[in-house]
Structure formats: C-alpha cells, structure tokens
C-alpha cells in the first residue's frame, strides 16, 4: 500500500487556512491516511531560485530527505499548494537530469546529516491523488448534499498542469479532471476557457499593472460565463483572486464579485460537513449569495459583527476610553 506524506507548505497555516481546515475535514470521509513530514521547511516559492541555484535546491531537498527518512517503503509526497508541489517535483527531476546539481545538493545536505536519492519518492499534487488514487466513484459515494444549481468555474492555474513531468493530466492547457470532480459533487461546471491561465503569481508584489490585468482576465471570464464562484487548487491563486479582487476592481473601475473557494471546501459541503469547519467565511469576497443557492449559510465572522462605532463609515480611528459618549 502506498504511504502518503503531507507537505503542507507555509500558506496552509496562514492565508490558506481554509484550505487546511477543509482538507483535514475531508480526510476522514475519503478514508485517506496521511502523515505530515516532520519539521518541514519552506520550499522557497519562486524566490530562492531567482537568487542562487544550489542553496535553492538544497532548501527544497531538505524536505525530500526528511520525507524519505520518515517513509517506510514506497512513499508519495502530497502537496496541496501548486508552487510547493512543483518545487518538490523539480528538485527530484533536476537532481536526476543534471547529476552535478544532484551531487552538490547532496554535499550540502550531508553537512546537515541528510541525503536524498532522486527518484526515491513520488511527488504529487493533492488534486491528482484525490482524483487518480481515491477516485471519482468513491468521492461520489460520499456525496450527501449535491451542489445542485451551483455554477462553478474550475480554475487550475499553472503549476499543476505544467510542466507535468509525470504526465498525470489529460492536457497541459485544458485538462478536464477538476471539471469531472466538481461534476461528481453535483455542481454545474462551466467550460472555463482560462482554467490554466496565470493568476499573477508574485506580481502583486513586483508589478501591479501586470498582476491586476491577469487577475482581471480571470474574473471577467468567470463573470461572462455567469459562474457563482471560482474554485482553486492553490493558496497563491486563492490569495491573488480573492484578496486582490478589491484592488483590481478599483484599478479598472470594475465591480467583479466572484467568490474564490478551495476545491476541498466544496467537497466538504457536498459531504455534508458544517460550513464553519470548512473555513467557509474566511474568504474576503463573500460567498454568501453564491452558497445560498445550495442552502448553505455562510457563518458570521465574530470579528465582523457590527458594533456601535461600526455604523460610521470610514477608516477606524484611534480612540480613548469614553470617546463613544461624546457627540
């Protein structure tokens, strides 16, 4: 039996908390045994590789070495984040393709008492494991609340379908696996033309005009197809499309309102799991109206409850005790 080791990645504890919560909830109904890699470190995202090659690959490979040591026999490393998944897969692939890189990485790892033989682990994205190992038939059997009437844009982004070293997907540019998973949950899936286009990656931090245009395209397309919401498989895509949707709207004077949820959250809803446990409500672009269509109440965020002062418009201002009685 294949053993699954989880590489969560840094975002799962922060901006993509909803992804983590929902993943932990659906593990049980899926009968999925998965164990976290102990003391894993950041994969370096797309930043370290742009600074220095050997340290960047040594950083990634420490995780592979830890995972290989923790594994008992054949093991598959599962990453829910597309960037983490690709970095881990790339290290495994390039250490083989360029033996000098492999040798240098292992020399560096040896300084920390570690070693990794490329090819000894299988690196896969969470979506791939759910679709290809657990299978859509099994997923379908767990559905108790079909997402009937919910129009969903299936959005994969870049790094899951490309470069796809192991040829796990039906295409680099228009794979249909996520569509089929969402259909198995009972959702109405739009034929989303931009499903593997870029969300902007780290561009909101580098070049805003580039980033906002990439975000705008995706939102515009989802709106044209009258999607109630968009589903992502990556923390960075979720962050860019959800958190920067407001800034994008201001930049283009548009009024897009497309909630962005993780595919695991929709799986959880279809499995009849409580919305709050799935991290629904943590999205900045509210999914309230969209989820009402399938009879799901978005939990009220305690911190967002209106207060007496909250009635006033404008930015919160510093205040002293007793201020509220004045005026």
């Amino acid at each position: 039996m294949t053993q699954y080791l989880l590489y969560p990645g840094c975002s799962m504890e922060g901006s993509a908390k909803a992804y983590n919560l929902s993943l932990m909830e659906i593990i049980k109904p899926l009968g999925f045994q998965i164990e976290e890699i102990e003391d894993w470190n950041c994969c370096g995202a797309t930043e370290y590789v742009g600074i220095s090659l050997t340290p960047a690959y040594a950083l990634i490979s420490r995780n592979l070495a830890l995972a290989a040591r923790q594994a008992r026999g054949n093991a598959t490393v599962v990453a829910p984040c597309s960037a983490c998944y690709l970095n881990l897969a790339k290290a495994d692939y390039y250490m083989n393709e360029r033996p000098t890189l492999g040798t240098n990485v292992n020399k560096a790892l040896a300084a920390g008492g570690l070693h990794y033989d490329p090819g000894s682990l299988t690196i896969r994205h969470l979506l791939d494991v759910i679709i290809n190992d657990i299978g859509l038939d099994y997923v379908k059997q767990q559905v108790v609340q079909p997402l009937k009437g919910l129009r969903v844009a299936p959005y994969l982004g870049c790094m899951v379908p490309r470069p796809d070293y192991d040829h796990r997907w039906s295409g680099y540019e228009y794979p249909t696996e996520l569509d089929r998973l969402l259909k198995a949950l009972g959702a109405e899936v739009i034929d989303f033309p931009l499903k593997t286009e870029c969300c902007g990656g780290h561009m909101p931090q580098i070049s805003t005009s580039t980033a906002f245009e990439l975000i705008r395209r995706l939102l515009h397309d989802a709106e044209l197809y009258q999607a109630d919401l968009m589903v992502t498989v990556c923390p960075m895509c979720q962050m860019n499309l959800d958190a920067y949707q407001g800034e994008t709207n201001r930049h283009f004077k548009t009024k897009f309102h497309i909630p962005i949820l993780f595919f695991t959250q929709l799986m959880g809803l279809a499995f009849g799991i409580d919305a709050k446990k799935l991290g629904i409500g943590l999205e900045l672009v509210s999914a309230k109206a969209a989820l009402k269509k399938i009879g799901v109440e978005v939990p009220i965020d305690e911190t967002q409850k209106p207060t007496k002062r909250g009635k006033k418009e404008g930015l919160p201002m510093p205040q002293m005790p007793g201020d509220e009685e004045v005026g």
Partner: protein
Amino acid sequence: MIAQPVNPNDPNPNLRFLEEVSAATAGVARLEMCIQCGTCGGSCPSAADMNHTPRMLFAMIRAGMREDALKSNTPWICVSCYHCVVRCPQDVHITDVMYTLKSMAIRAKLYQDSTGPDFSATFVDMVENYGRSFELGLASLHYLKHFPLRLPGMAPMALGLLSKKRMGMMPTRIKGIDQLKTILERAKELEAEK
C-alpha cells in the same frame, strides 16, 4: 552596449555567455537549441510588459550581449506559468533560464528596478532565519518600502486578512533551523566554487 573583453584565441568568444547561462541553470537548459520561432513570446501572458520577448532575449544571449540581457526586465516580468515551456518545439527550459538571468543580474548589479530583487531577498532572508516564510512580515516590509502609495487602498484587505486570522502575527521557526542553516551555508560555498 559596452564591448566585452575578447580572447583572441577564442574563435567564438560570443558563445561564452550562452555557455555561462546554460551552466548556471537547473536541469539541461537547451538554450542553444532555440530556433527563434517566437512561440514563447506568443504564449506569454505578460509579454506586453516585457522589454524583450523571451525569443529576443535568447537571441541576445546567443549574440553574447551580456549587459543588455542582464538589464532586461523580462525575467522579472515572467510569471512562471510554463506556457512557453510546454509549447516550445525545442524543449528549452525557458522558465529556469529566466531564474538564472535574475540571479546573474543581481550578482552583476545590472538590473535597475529593485522591486523584484528586494522582494526575493526579503523572502529568502525570512526563510533562512526561520525555515518558514512569514507572510505578514514580508508584506509589511515590502509594501512600506516599494508601494507606500498603495497602502491606504490596501487597508480593507489587510484588515480582512488580519481579522480573519489569515495572517500569523509571529513567524514560525522550524526545530531544525540550525541544521537548515548549516546546509544552506555549505550550499552557498558550493555555489561560489562553481
């Protein structure tokens, strides 16, 4: 363009830059295989903001135009979407070549806009010290320095992320941070020896 010193005994001195880029790239770059078809630029979602399309940049590298190539904003505008990589008829590792050019431009201090290099440097600094990325620290440092005018407009988003606890207030440090630091120090030595 400033002419590079030329070794009179080298019959193809301009090819040395191409070799240098290829040698510094993860995997086998296959940069010399480029047939200048332009599929990369035509597939690129951010080409409109680039000084040179990838095709042009590769021609410059092959022509030994080191300084012009390292001054180009192209690698910094690349979004790592891998569309060009899967469409390239010659299997050039385009995205990885872009990473190489970034690291070479930083070392040669040739790229003028510091936004991209600073973001990478701040990110890497946090990872080297904690073993994990720290979104809040990274974002505040970076936006204060490079995008102060965006801050008022970003306030609702920042408040939303903080109130929904989607940003940790403190960085997490891994247990094996000393081990990681030792590994990275050794890796940097090896990188310098190349």
